[in-house]
């Protein structure tokens, strides 16, 4: 969801440097470093030193919601695009693509993660859990409905995943902890009151389970 030429030098005629060009030229091995440091300038030098893999599409097997999916993907493809476009798991939304808003939150090995911040190739051997895996009567989903913690609903699946991960891990959390713990997601319609009420109810019970 980002402008492919926005992060180049702000001169449309000039040459620039951007994440996906970098990832394309350097391969997945380096890409991990790039994301870990999230400092593209610094990692450009590392790229030269690293063991550069092919930028071409490669076979990859991803475990998503307990199912193995065999795909052929270029190393630069994000987990977010893979989930949405290749696996049609569109509950995670492409809103900022710059790890700011949390609309693409999924769980990787149980940990809430922005799917736009991971390459699909990085997730080999890990367990990816998306909102589609939640049972129809999931208490977090039910809580969002009960407290009307949604309006347009576009940020909601990401918030549900973040809330689930937080409440599972932090039973008994205080209001201040809930506010801090759910601070990684953004809603535009203004549903924070309902989300807070939902999360507080869950943590005072027994977490998101």
């Amino acid at each position, binding site marked *: 969801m*980002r402008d492919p030429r926005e992060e180049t030098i*702000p001169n449309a005629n000039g040459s620039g440097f951007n994440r996906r060009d970098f990832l394309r030229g350097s391969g997945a091995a380096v890409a991990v470093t790039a994301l870990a440091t999230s400092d593209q300038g610094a990692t450009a030098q590392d790229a030269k030193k690293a063991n550069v893999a092919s930028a071409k599409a490669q076979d990859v097997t991803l475990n998503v919601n307990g199912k193995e999916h065999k795909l052929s993907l270029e190393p630069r493809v994000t987990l977010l*695009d893979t989930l949405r476009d290749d696996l049609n798991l569109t509950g995670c939304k492409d809103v*900022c693509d710059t790890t700011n808003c949390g609309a693409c939150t999924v769980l990787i090995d149980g940990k809430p993660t922005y799917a736009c911040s991971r390459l699909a190739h990085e997730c080999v051997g890990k367990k990816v859990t998306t909102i589609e895996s939640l049972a129809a009567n999931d208490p977090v989903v039910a809580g969002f409905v009960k407290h009307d913690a*949604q309006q*347009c609903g576009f940020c909601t699946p990401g918030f549900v995943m973040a809330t689930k991960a937080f409440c599972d891990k932090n039973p008994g959390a205080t209001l201040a902890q809930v506010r801090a713990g759910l601070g990684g997601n953004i809603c535009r319609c203004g549903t924070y009151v309902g989300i807070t009420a939902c999360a507080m109810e869950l943590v005072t019970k027994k977490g998101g389970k």
Partner: protein
Amino acid sequence: MATELKVAWGPRKDNVYLGKEITRLDGVEKASGAAKYAADANPKGCLYAKVLSFKGGAGKVKSLNLDDALKVPGVKAVHAFVKEGDELQWDGALVAAVAAERQEQAEDGVRAIKFTFDTMEHFVDEDDLKGAEAAKRTKDLGNNTKGDVEAALKSAAVVHKGQYGIATISHMCLETHGSCTRWEEGKLIVNHSTQNVSGTPANFVSELQKQHNISVDAADVTVLCQFVGGGFGSKFAADDWGVAAAKMSKETGRPVRLMLDRATELKIAGTRPSGFAEVTIAADKDGKIVAWDSHHWGTNGGMKGGTINLAQFPYVFDFDNRNRKATGLVTNAGPDRAWRAPPHPQLCALTDTAIDDIAAKLGKSAVDVFLANIDKTPEKLQATYVAEIKRAAELIGWSKKWHPHGKGGDGDVKRGLGMAIHTWGGRAHAGTCTVRINPDGSVESLSGTQDIGTGTRTAIAMVLAETFGITLDAVKVRYGSSVYPRSGPSGGSTTIGGVTGPNRRAAIAALGKLFDVVAEKHKVDGNNLTTKGGKIWNGDKEVCTWKAACGLLGMMGIETTGEGPKDDGLTSEQVGGVQMADVSVDTKTGIVRINQFVAVQDCGLIVDLLTAKSQVYGGLIMGIAYSLTEEQILDNKTGRYINADLENYKLPRIGDIGELIVEMYQPDSEYERGVIGLGEPPVIACGAAISNAVANATGVRVPTIPLTPKRVLDALKAAKA
């Protein structure tokens, strides 16, 4: 004798659903990620499109060559929005689009485009009136006078001169604008992110013809939108990018999904115009405002040279003596689109701040001064305002907490209170619907409306369940397709009246027909029949069950049509609303925090109390965003929109909103008014209320909203100097 049922809402006390807190019917679908938005459309063979947008203040296209983009692996179609010699008048203006098998390939394609331009002069400084005049970038938008301002100023007890402002913001829809288009046997089908399902097919038809010489009948265009990820007034049209997607789709014979990228979304898909004002305001010793003299300016971008409406200024209050004058600035910024309650947030931010300042000058509480001038507000709202001000003051503890301006405490962190009031029309839009009673007892409503997150679907179901005396799950609400009977666009808080009126009318007509059949079968007078709890009643005697009654209908059931708006009392218009803020201001860092924010809001007959309150909470939170952090920042030197992303375009997060207290003002007199829209009003008074609270805390007016730390510190520093 045919049954004739009166078209009206029932007695309030008898309602089973109306006015109750009902959870939204599509809540699970949305919260579980099952809801499909236009951005999620992914039909077989779908191509993904990306745009190249202009990076600069203004420029003229020197060359544009898309050949290399077409050579990029995976790229299937390209489209040029401009040609050599065309002028690009703002950052983000569309240059070209590329559709490819994969998103990353489309991005490669965009990067392969050869595009050069000659830089042109630009002007983007939205509050610089003198600079704009020097650059010949202003438009005189008129002035007018009422009464004798000069005489009133001379006789006034106090006169205050102030400067006020409110910056441009972007809509920042989390689902960017866009669509997924496909052609099937000459027919165009569009999954469109829109607030205007019924109105968009004709827009696609005319734009395809005009821009690309592609002919298609409106009857062969279907627009689909079950869910829309935010619109706030910016999603009413097919838009150039939607039309380009349809064109590339036709060329390739493949579905094309084109959603704007985040930066382009912020730059070109809608902004709320800015407003700045120099105000002279005067009052007598009792706080009655006797004179108003203002010159306001601002810009609505798009080289249009507009600003907020002269005729609506000052806001809500119509003082006996006033001068007003407006100037529009012509700026190289993305064009405005309607932003929730246009242009009331700006009007309020420039009016109620000045009223607060004159109150401060008199040493009076803002509550007293607002009340002293209520006779200058629209007559039908005066009693409502008085009641709402008193209630809001109770809720926030105004009389205990209030202190004169600048007496917000001795420490670095000062605390203060502020208030503001607003109004909005909210009249029902024109719309039709079909209601069906099926022989099995199930009920359907069909209309080409949309649920933009306000709870439209739930409201329609509640109206039908209430009218037929059945449960919500027996009602199927079908909407979000232009195939259904036409309904209005969801803008201006017109939808709730626009759908509940026609559905109630159609349902009452259908019920009359059903009662005819029941009356004949059971030998009773249809006019004595009622329905409640899934049964048909003759007085207090049960006649038959709802299901048994519907079983009498034969195979066709009943189908009726409802229209609106009508003058039958089901819907009406114009609400008030009062907001009060309690804030803390850190005078060392300039950070403003909301302690409490109270809203007391009327909206006539409340359909769903739960989603109604959600609208108000949402309004307050959007209001906190534009009051404290959110703004479009254009760089004077380059003309670029430099914070067009979610990192630097600052929206509040869940911990940034303080405690929100929402109370719906709902005496029986409000119920009797019928349904009135609620989406816009709660977002209006926030800016002025929060700015006034900061002024009360610090004794210093921070002129321009949003009250960022820098603006707060600058104002404090200027006041000391």
